[in-house]
């Protein structure tokens, strides 16, 4: 009976596989931020094609999700590297430590700019971070009662600032699950928010209140959550010339014929401006590596060497072609050295 045969083969299939499952992993496993994903994948591919090692597997889990997997333990079951669009938090270091993950190598790989852009059909206008806060916060300081909050009344940009055009506020941006959103809120909204003196003082006295004022984005339709897909935001800007969009610099670079970046605090989102840190809405990107995995999984050292080589992350490297903003030469040297020597710079030991 062919069906019985089928069941039998299925069984055999499973049993024979049981033994294999525990075998050693011979490829590097990487998890983490979707912002670093486009860069890590390029390095992984080049690494796989130019060395005798297998191509690393890269999952895009988001920075937080990456740390969760990364800190789960030591061993072939757990990822070797996590990439992140923010520095590791103390709570994550603690979580790692409780699971025995000590000796983590932190490598900064470069910067990413978050751009605010609109369609080429509309004339560009510069924004300050304060403008952005006043346009997008759920509650803003009441101009009549100092120290009081009022629900955001602004409908058009002109209401915020006289030199801005008289068009409705409509901003397409990422949802709260996105690292880009976190960075935008922190770097643009919070900076604009702290221009108000009494809120600035609140930072010291009531941090919770401060964060809820500065970090809460309005929900009345002016800010439109357009999903994690930055391509979609670019497409929507094309069909809606009055809207602004928030996305990563690499998407601006690929679509310069369709959209234009707006100046923030007078500085346009350009390669040089982000590289020398004068563009305000940019953030560093990191790799975190488990030192104890270096001997266990083949190729980690070689992979780090590839990542930190000039031909990858240098000023003319292939990562800059993909939109990564390189660090200064001195910073690059520092982190290359760290990677070469596998210097665990996130706490030396559990001790």
């Amino acid at each position, binding site marked *: 009976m062919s*069906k019985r045969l*089928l*069941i039998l*083969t*299925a069984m055999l*299939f499973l049993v024979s*596989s049981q033994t*294999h*499952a*525990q*075998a050693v*992993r011979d*490829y590097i*496993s990487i998890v983490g931020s*979707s912002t670093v*994903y*486009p860069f*890590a*994948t*390029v390095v*992984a*591919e080049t690494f*796989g*094609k130019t060395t005798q090692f*297998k*191509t690393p*597997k*890269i*999952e*895009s889990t988001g920075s937080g999700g990456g740390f969760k997997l990364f800190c789960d333990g030591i061993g072939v*079951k757990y990822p070797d590297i996590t990439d992140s669009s923010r520095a590791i938090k103390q709570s994550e270091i603690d979580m790692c430590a409780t699971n025995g993950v000590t000796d983590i190598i932190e490598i900064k790989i470069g910067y990413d700019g978050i751009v605010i852009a609109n369609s*080429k059909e509309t004339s560009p206008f510069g924004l300050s971070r304060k403008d952005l806060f006043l346009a997008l916060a759920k509650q803003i300081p009441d101009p009549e009662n100092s120290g009081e909050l009022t629900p955001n009344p602004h409908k058009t940009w002109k209401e915020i600032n006289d030199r801005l055009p008289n068009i409705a506020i409509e901003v397409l941006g990422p949802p709260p699950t996105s690292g880009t959103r976190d960075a935008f809120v922190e770097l643009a909204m919070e900076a604009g928010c702290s221009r108000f003196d009494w809120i600035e003082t609140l930072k010291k006295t009531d941090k919770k209140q401060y964060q809820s004022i500065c970090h809460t984005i309005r929900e009345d339709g002016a800010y439109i959550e357009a999903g*994690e*897909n*930055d*391509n979609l935001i670019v497409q929507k800007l094309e069909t809606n010339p009055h809207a602004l969009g928030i996305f*990563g610099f*690499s*998407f601006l*670079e*690929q*679509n*310069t*014929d369709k959209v234009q970046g707006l100046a923030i605090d007078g500085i346009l989102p350009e390669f040089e401006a982000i590289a020398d840190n004068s563009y305000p809405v940019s953030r560093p990107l990191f790799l975190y590596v488990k030192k104890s995995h270096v001997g266990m999984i083949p190729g980690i050292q070689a992979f780090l060497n590839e990542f930190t080589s000039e031909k990858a992350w240098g000023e*003319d490297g292939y990562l800059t072609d*993909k*939109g990564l903003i390189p660090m200064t030469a001195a910073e690059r040297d520092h982190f290359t050295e760290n990677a070469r020597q596998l210097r665990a710079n996130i706490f030396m030991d559990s001790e």
Partner: protein
Amino acid sequence: MNKRMPARPKTIDRINQGLAKRHASEKLFHRMGLLSLLFGITCVAILFSSIISKGYTAFQQTFIQIEVHFDEQYFTVSGKDNDTEALSTADYGGMVKQSLRSQFPEAASRQEKRLLYDLVSIGATYQLRNMVMQDPALIGQTTPVWVPANDDVDMLIKGHMKREAPEAERRLRDQQIVWLDQLIAQEQLSLKLNTAFFTNGDSREPELAGIRGALMGSILTLMVTLLLSFPIGVATAVYLEEFAPKNKWTDFIEVNINNLAAVPSIVYGLLGLAVFINFIGFPRSAPLVGGLVLTLMTLPTIIIASRAALKSVPPSIREAALGIGASKMQTVFFHVLPLAFPGMLTGTIIGMAQALGETAPLLMIGMVAFIVDIPSGIFDPATVLPVQIFLWADSPERAFVERTSAAIMVLLGFLIIMNAIAVMLRKKFERRW
């Protein structure tokens, strides 16, 4: 005293009276049905035409012909005699650059040379290496080779990037376009069939990216799913339908199976993560785990379809078999099952088609990942077609837009084939009573 209406209306008159209204409402119903059908067809037509119009160009790729001189000097590795080592580590990038320089000697400055090298894909390097590895006799010779062009060139040739746009707004500089025009005039640039799309795994270079890895992943995953869910599903259905006593317990199980069919698929992913990866310790991202999770997801569908198929076999068949002395098992295996089989198969194929298009549960078990190497077994890390579509849709490079649509076309092709097989099987074996 009994005042009657002079002429009592006859039945036929009342019918005639209402006839126009009844005809009108029937016509309305008819039209509404037709309208909703048209609406559905239009939506499908729009979907298909937008996907096909965006995606068909991905099946072609721009190639550039370069004269490659496989100079011996590139193959001498200092102090090493190892032949294959020398062959695989030779500076193929240097050879590509050399041939481009001799083609366009006017590119002198470093900046210009960089622009020139950017015309050709990095894939040219790997292609030359493969050529030499296969035929070391090429060393020392000069041959024309068609190599893939960079994705920006490809976009320009296919018209997805506007040539008229000001230089600052396109990714190709004026100088590069001049060179491309020269190549076109000399017939050294042309669109050819994009075989890489079917033979390569994923890549971050759109011109090298292919769906073979995802396709293999889908096939392996579905194989695991089919091998597990079909026998288990059919056995469950046969037991519940033919052997199990009808009591509270079986009712309870039946309700639960029907409920499971409606559980969102992400829940199965979480279950898979907890049980197969964290508890049993299967590797992440493996088709084995994907197949197991999808098995859980498709089982209710298969069980429900199989039970319906068993129910539709008339009781007279069973009674006749039992009447001439067949045992219960003989009755089921030799008489009921063969008649119910087409229905079971249809249910299974529909379940498989559902599994083929699933991404949500795979997210939890690590199959949403960048994987270049083509998986060869159920333990290798793999991804599947719908995940590949998702990953490409999210990539910044413009050339991935058409590849996304092309991958959707491949996925839709497979779904249509599977559903067509289901219909054919039904037509062929179905018996009406």
